[in-house]
């Protein structure tokens, strides 16, 4: 196994750990954290591909930068919304936030 594929193994694993976390967690903030894990896995992918395959250009690298930036923005908005939710429901547990269903 090449080095690249090994690192990719790690990043893929990290991605699905994130998925697992998202799916099992009840707390919205931990869900957000799980998403961050997934995004990090994607970042690693981009960096690794850029590094090992297409080093002559910086597409992957820039993509990573933008993902990080956007992740920040997304997290900010998400947290704003979550805090908003917390004010209204006094909880951020998804089990308790289900006035909308069916």
């Amino acid at each position: 196994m090449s080095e690249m594929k090994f690192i990719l193994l790690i990043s893929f694993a990290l991605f699905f750990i994130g998925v697992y976390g998202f799916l099992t967690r009840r707390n919205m903030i931990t869900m957000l954290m799980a998403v961050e894990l997934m995004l990090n896995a994607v970042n690693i992918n981009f960096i690794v591909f850029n590094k090992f395959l297409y080093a002559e250009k910086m597409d992957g690298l820039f993509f990573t930068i933008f993902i990080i930036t956007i992740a920040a923005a997304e997290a900010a908005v998400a947290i704003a919304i979550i805090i908003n939710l917390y004010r209204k429901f006094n909880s951020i547990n998804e089990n308790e936030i289900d006035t909308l269903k069916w």
Partner: protein
Amino acid sequence: MILVFGVLTVASRKIFRAAIFLLFTLINVAALYFFLEYEFIAAVQIVVYVGGIVVLILFSLFLTHRVNSDLPHPSAMKMIVTFLAAFFAFGFVYTLLYWHEFAEAVPVGSAVPVRMIGKAMLNYGEGGFVLPFEVVSILLLAAMVGCIAIAFKTKLKEHKAS
């Protein structure tokens, strides 16, 4: 290390611990970048993620959570099913990756200097990223406005109400 902390992040029942584990994971990822000689990305990772997002998350945790309370335990059944699904998906995806033959070039030894990044960032020709750069700035602005609008206006209203 990344994986260990990642697992801990999603498995920890104490929410703060989870956050700290996330922090460690992110730092480890940064280390990985560093190791891959992308120092700039590593730096960004540390600054934005560790310095920004995690802090934000911790901050929001303080706001929303009673400090030492445990997270509710997800049902075992659900955990197993989810785990199996995620694991299966992982196996599937990784198998595909494993059998894919990349035209692996020899890694270019030198690191990408920050200057090049800066140049590319402002280049508007082929291989330049000025447009995304601008766009992302608008995006950040908009996100900011959105956050402010939601967080502050509701607060104001509540104040008025009380």
